[in-house]
């Protein structure tokens, strides 16, 4: 039984048009024009317990809209949605007790209060039983390393530490599902890595289902077993990162460092991407040209110092997909 099930979800918004021209403002007193945007258009998917799903898409694709509907904050124009058997917007209070949410730009904590008081308040709000709260709190403080920051007012925390506190706050009531909306935005590298580590541990050790929306592809690469890409209100890809790579482009990059400056030459089974005096970059398809063969050919023809083989960055793949949504259909 799927934990989350979305069927044919659609959402249309009415947006007021700004009046134009010199007399537009006066005309605007008497009438307003509207146009309709479809943020979601027949979206369907399901998620099993314990999955760590990445949810990406270009700006305006409908990511936030989906998350808002799943959390129960937004009602769709049509379609159904079931989270742990409940309808998020119709059974808001029950549903919301089952989920935790961290929105990168907004805070769930009380700005002027020390972190631990925010936690206290949340335990009262979520009606968490005292002893259970004590255990959960201790575990989260340990996993997220928050001990030294508990008595600091939230407004004095750096963004990195604040996000960790937000994560703890979202999990105090031990929800089986966690929505993360751009959690690493604005964080420095150390904090990013730490946060990713924590999310991974929470998913693996405590079995929390995580849905992660992000623009940072390293988040996806390091965390997600499953990736959904949404564009123009519908899902255009749903599978693993490997499948994505393979369906867009199976090509790999071979970078070669040369002992001495050499003029460009052609190598059979590979195309030249870049050639500087001491470095050459080739692109090839490992299904057509076997990697060991290619390396042998290059070693025979060039003064080889060092080489490396890489998959293209997911960032690049995704960017290509955003630019050309038909890329996946081939």
């Amino acid at each position, binding site marked *: 039984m799927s934990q989350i099930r979305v069927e044919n979800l659609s959402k249309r918004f009415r947006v007021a048009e700004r009046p134009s021209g010199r007399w537009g403002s006066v005309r*605007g007193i008497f009438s307003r024009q509207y146009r309709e945007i479809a943020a979601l258009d027949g979206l369907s998917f399901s998620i099993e317990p314990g999955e760590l799903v990445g949810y990406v898409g270009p700006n305006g694709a409908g990511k936030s809209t989906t998350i808002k509907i799943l959390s129960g904050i937004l009602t769709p124009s049509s379609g159904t949605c079931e989270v742990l058997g409940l309808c998020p917007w119709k059974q808001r209070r029950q549903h919301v007790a089952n989920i935790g949410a961290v929105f990168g730009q907004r805070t769930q904590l009380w700005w002027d209060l020390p972190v631990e008081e925010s936690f206290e308040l949340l335990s009262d709000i979520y009606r968490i039983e005292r002893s259970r709260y004590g255990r959960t709190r201790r575990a989260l403080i340990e996993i997220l390393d928050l001990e030294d920051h508990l008595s600091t007012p939230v407004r004095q925390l750096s963004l990195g530490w604040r996000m960790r506190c937000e994560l703890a706050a979202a999990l105090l009531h031990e929800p089986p599902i966690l929505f993360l909306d751009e959690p690493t935005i604005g964080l420095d590298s150390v904090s990013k890595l730490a946060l990713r580590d924590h999310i991974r541990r929470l998913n693996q050790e405590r079995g929390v289902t995580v849905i992660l929306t992000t623009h940072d592809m390293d988040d996806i690469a390091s965390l997600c077993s499953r990736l959904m890409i949404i564009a123009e209100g519908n899902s255009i890809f749903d599978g693993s990162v490997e499948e994505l790579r393979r369906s867009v482009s199976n090509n790999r990059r071979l970078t070669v460092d040369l002992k001495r400056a050499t003029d460009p030459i052609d190598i059979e089974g590979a195309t030249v991407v870049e050639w500087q005096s001491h470095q050459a970059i080739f692109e090839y398809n490992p299904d057509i040209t076997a990697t060991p063969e290619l390396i042998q050919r290059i070693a025979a023809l060039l003064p080889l110092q060092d080489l490396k083989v890489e998959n293209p960055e997911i960032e690049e793949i995704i960017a290509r997909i955003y630019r050309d949504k038909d890329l996946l259909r081939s």
Partner: protein
Amino acid sequence: MRPFLSVLGARFRMQLQYRAAALAGLTTQVFFGLIIIMIYRAYYANATETPPIAIEQLVSFVWLSQILYAMMPWTGAPELNALARSGDICFEMLRPVGIYWRWFARCLAWKVSAPLMRGIPMIILAGLFFGLGSPASIFSGFLFAFSLIGVALLAASISVIWSAVLLWSVVGEGLRHLSWFLVGFFSGLMLPLPLMPDWLRTFCEYLPFRGLVDTPYRIYIGSIAPGESLGPLASQFAWIIILIFLGRALIRLGENRLTVQGG
């Protein structure tokens, strides 16, 4: 002059966008005006002695106070308050032209444009339906218009002081909370000066705030006859000059304080 007009125009166009707000605000002010007038009428109904202001005059007074309500210097201009509070005023100090007059110009533009949006429909409504009378005489009308220039300048000079005082954060914020009482009561807005007991009225006449309400409105309704208006008008302008000097001094003191403290 041209930039001043364009700022005025921009502000006006901005206010046009908020049509519901304009209508709502208009309704509220009309409502408040009607209630206040009803209260006065109830008092006047059983009056045993003749009051110093006739009820028709009082009605006009109340409507004038609603029409020109936005002109009152309740607080400093919001953008200037923000500047003073944040310490971004240091950037202002780098500019060649003096801060005071730039602030003054901004407050003046604000106080002149503010009542236009609601004032005009209210003049029409109050004049047609609710008893706003015409000026006591043509000469009174001219003097009233003249005194309005004074009101704008006075309001601007007070606004600047409210903003300048924020450079001393604690005192400034505190003063902000007292401004409603100071401006509202001593100007004659809460209770027209003639209805006050003598000792209180005399006290208010020595304060700058009466030039905002008492002087212009009473000239209009004829309670201050044209012949008697020289004194109040002179006092209005005297206060403008005093408060301009005070404002300039405060800003200079505030600048010195900032440069010494480091902002």
